[in-house]
């Protein structure tokens, strides 16, 4: 099963009541790839991730995991199918310990059988979580919480990891650290679909990228192409040709 897409999103519409958030969005993530999804606030990036994760069912179009249609699945069955979302704002179980949070990540039957081995490798990636194992998750620092959120997702044995703004609210050094970890996770064979405010870092990590604006995919291509693209540079990378001043 080495080749072929893990995730295919085809012509997906999504609504919040009468408001349409996604308009015919299509994208693809292949085995072992890192795909970035960039765009302004309110473009529908989070909605798209939530649709894939089974938290927001699309009103039209289909979502396939390894060729199987899953757009009507509840979220926990998407987890069993090997796709795990690290939601925006981390959403840890703050009153539970670090270890319990990790345990919860392996709740699906597929992951539960192997949870002790998975735990070992997760703690290898995040040694700080081992030190804090019996601490309540709410008492961790922001960066540690993000690591726990990623660690909890890894406990579900994902083939595809969906990340929603992993750098949000974190210090630059911590962000570097998180991105290093994402690269490492990807090198272990996990595909990544990354929504990120920090477009430069996202494009440097990604192989391919999509630009979402007002609920539509307006641009896609290889990450290097997009890094060179003038529109992308102007809108998302902070290049601004204001009055001849080049940064």
């Amino acid at each position, binding site marked *: 099963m080495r080749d072929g897409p893990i995730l295919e999103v085809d012509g997906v519409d999504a609504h919040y009541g009468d408001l349409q958030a996604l308009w015919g969005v299509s994208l693809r993530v292949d085995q072992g790839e890192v795909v970035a999804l960039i765009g302004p606030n309110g473009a529908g990036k989070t909605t798209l991730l939530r649709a894939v994760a089974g*938290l927001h069912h699309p009103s039209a179009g289909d979502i396939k995991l390894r060729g199987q249609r899953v757009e009507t699945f509840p979220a926990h069955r998407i*987890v069993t199918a090997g796709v795990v979302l690290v939601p925006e704002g981390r959403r840890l179980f703050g009153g*539970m310990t670090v270890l319990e949070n990790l345990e*919860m990540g392996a*709740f699906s039957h597929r992951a539960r059988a192997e949870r002790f081995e998975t735990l070992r490798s997760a703690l290898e990636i995040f040694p700080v979580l081992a030190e804090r194992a019996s601490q309540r998750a709410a008492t961790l620092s922001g960066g540690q919480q993000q690591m726990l959120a990623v660690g909890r997702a890894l406990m579900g044995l994902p083939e595809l990891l969906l990340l929603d703004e992993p750098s949000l609210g974190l210090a630059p050094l911590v962000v570097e650290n998180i991105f290093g970890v994402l690269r490492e996770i990807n090198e272990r064979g996990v595909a990544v679909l990354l929504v990120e405010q920090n477009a430069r870092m996202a494009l440097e990590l990604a192989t391919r990228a999509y630009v979402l604006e007002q609920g539509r995919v307006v641009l896609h291509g290889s990450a290097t192409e997009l890094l060179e693209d003038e529109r992308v540079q102007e809108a998302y990378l902070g290049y601004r040709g204001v009055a001849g001043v080049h940064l």
Partner: protein
Amino acid sequence: MNLEPVPQLLVFGVFVGALYGVAAVGLALVFGVMRVLNVAHGELLMIGGYASFWLFTLWRVDPFVSLLATAPILFVMGLALNGGLFSHVVRLDEETKIKNSLLIGFGLALILQNLAIQLWTADERSVTAAYSGLGLQLFGIVFPYTRLGGLAAALLGIFALHVFLQRTYVGKSIRATAEDWEAAELAGVSVRSVYLITFALGSALAGVAGTLVSVGFTIAPSIGLTWTIKALVVVVLAGLGNVFGVFAAGVLLGVAEALSVLAIGPAYREVVGLALFLVVLLLRPQGLFGAR
């Protein structure tokens, strides 16, 4: 004021309070996890009481032994009620969910109450075991066996619930769902199943409480609302998130009521709980033992 009866009142307060605790912990569990206030909780307790009464009357099953039957009976009833009624409201948005679950709860309470009148008449009933009326006497204080048994069973039930929630995988998934159901789904937890188990567990706890009420207290089809209100007061006193906190708040209410009999007379016994309820809501809305 004559302070002589204080120790005896305290002891009885603790006994009654332990019952309040058990009655409340089921309500708190369902509310904390599903955000559904089951106003028919007291009626489930009433059914548990009748189950115990009939087991004793028909087959002479000791009420403490019958816990092994009444809890499972109410558990199964909880499964059915959740599947048939409450599972349809939990996914609605917050406001509609509150309204609809209250309507369902009140409707269910009326149906169960009238069903009980039809089936078992409106008479007050009570289990009178061979050891009812007997007790230990220590330092001039009476400890009736039925009440001691009730306290022991209550503590055992609370402790078992605590261990279940803290130590088992399913228990942890219930706590996770209570904190953030979406995050629980994303971890691979079927929140639907968690709600089902939680409601059934809450009902089973009502069954336990009802069984304990049937020994040494009275049951009748109409007792439901009184117990729902008691349980609600205790839950507000305690705040959510801690099984032992709910139990402690139950004991606190029991003791406060008992002492009020001496201080302001038995006529105002029921007022004490409601006054405490208001004071806590005003001064510490998160409850005495609640987080945040």
